[in-house]
């Protein structure tokens, strides 16, 4: 088991005051909160910080932890010394709001027994199971056609000794057609099992789209950049455009400029109402890589008298 340096995790000195610890916690909690943070591994950091705070905010637990000595380094192999917690009494209910089942083995080995109520069985205790949350990564294509996904979830349940233990569950879940980025799917009763006669919790799946090389979804609308030749944009043309449901013929109106958005109604993510597909024109320049091509550009220069910077006043 690895030793955890709770002071290092919180970024405070070993002699930090309780106020300093609280301030450090608040700051880190905001930085790593899974609902707010964009940091990689935010959830992992958030749990780690929560665990560190659980110990350091409680003067009793902190004193017991300090007693292990200042010579331990994070990551070092750790076994609690025998009778290490003699003279300390961890009162139950110290776990204010924190999800103790998420804490590390290191935490369990030090403070676990206070939490488990001395391992006493509690036959009369019933509670609804925890809700489980997971993210599902899907392709835009799945939102157009529907799909199924196999998920492995780690659920916490109470073992026969009355202690929580982690059990893996495999689920096969239908992803309905028409889901959008950030939406949640609720599967009633598929969360963690209840305790005693308590009902199981619910499972919430958050939909996340894998990034696509050329489609981008915004809500129920989908965007795609479509390169067009200068003469297609200037003179108008019918060109092929890709859509997640298959290619379509698209009319480019004459006199189009780069950045013009053409809307294909109802060709976004399906639903009621369906989203739209926006084709954004990008004018692509043919390379001047031959004498003939250069001649065409020179001819344009002579004939068109075109100043692309006229609106900048230069």
């Amino acid at each position, binding site marked *: 088991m690895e030793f955890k340096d709770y002071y290092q995790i919180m970024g405070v000195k070993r002699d930090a005051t309780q106020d300093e610890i609280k301030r450090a916690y*608040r700051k880190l*909690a905001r930085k790593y909160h899974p*609902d707010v943070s964009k940091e990689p591994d935010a959830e992992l950091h958030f749990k780690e910080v929560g665990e560190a705070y659980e110990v350091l905010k409680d003067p009793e637990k902190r004193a017991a932890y300090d007693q292990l000595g200042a010579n331990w380094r994070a990551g070092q192999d750790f076994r609690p010394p025998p009778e290490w917690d003699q003279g300390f009494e961890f009162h139950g209910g110290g776990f204010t709001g924190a999800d103790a089942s998420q804490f590390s083995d290191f935490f369990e080995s030090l403070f676990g027994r206070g939490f488990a109520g001395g391992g006493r069985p509690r036959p009369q205790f019933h509670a609804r199971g925890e809700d489980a949350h997971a993210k599902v990564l899907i392709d835009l294509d799945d939102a157009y056609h529907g799909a199924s996904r*196999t998920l492995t979830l780690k659920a916490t349940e109470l073992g026969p000794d009355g202690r929580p233990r982690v059990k893996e569950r495999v689920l096969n879940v239908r992803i309905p057609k028409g889901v959008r980025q950030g939406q*949640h799917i609720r599967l009633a009763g*598929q969360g963690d099992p209840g305790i005693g006669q308590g009902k199981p919790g619910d499972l919430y799946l958050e939909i996340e789209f894998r990034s696509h090389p050329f489609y981008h*979804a*915004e809500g129920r609308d989908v965007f795609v950049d479509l390169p067009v030749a200068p003469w297609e944009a200037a003179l108008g043309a019918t060109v092929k455009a890709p859509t997640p449901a298959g290619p379509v013929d698209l009319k480019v109106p004459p006199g189009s400029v780069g950045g013009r958005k053409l809307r294909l109604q109802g060709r976004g993510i399906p639903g009621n109402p369906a989203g739209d597909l926006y084709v954004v024109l990008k004018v692509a320049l043919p390379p001047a890589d031959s004498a003939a091509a250069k001649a065409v550009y020179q001819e344009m220069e002579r004939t068109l008298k075109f100043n692309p910077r006229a609106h900048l006043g230069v």
Partner: protein
Amino acid sequence: MKNQLLPLLSGEVLDENVELSLADLCQACRLSAEQVFELVEEGIVEPVGQGAARWRFQGVSVRRVHCAVQLRRDLGVNWAGAALALDLLDELHRLRDRLRRFEG
């Protein structure tokens, strides 16, 4: 394939087509009706319908309430602070989606 033997589970997409009563929302978010009243007061969720007995919440309310409860518990903000954070987060997600389009 082992996975083929698993039953295919269907859930409910919590979108604007799903409507929940006050009791449904309390049950889904494990809150008392009084706590939901406070959330309505702060505008965190906005039911339609006259009187609590006829209130209808959109499916997306479940996510908003979950998020507000977590922000309050983990960051020590009050409901008004959670409401502000939620609105800013919605805006942030919209902008990130848009940014992805231009960075793509």
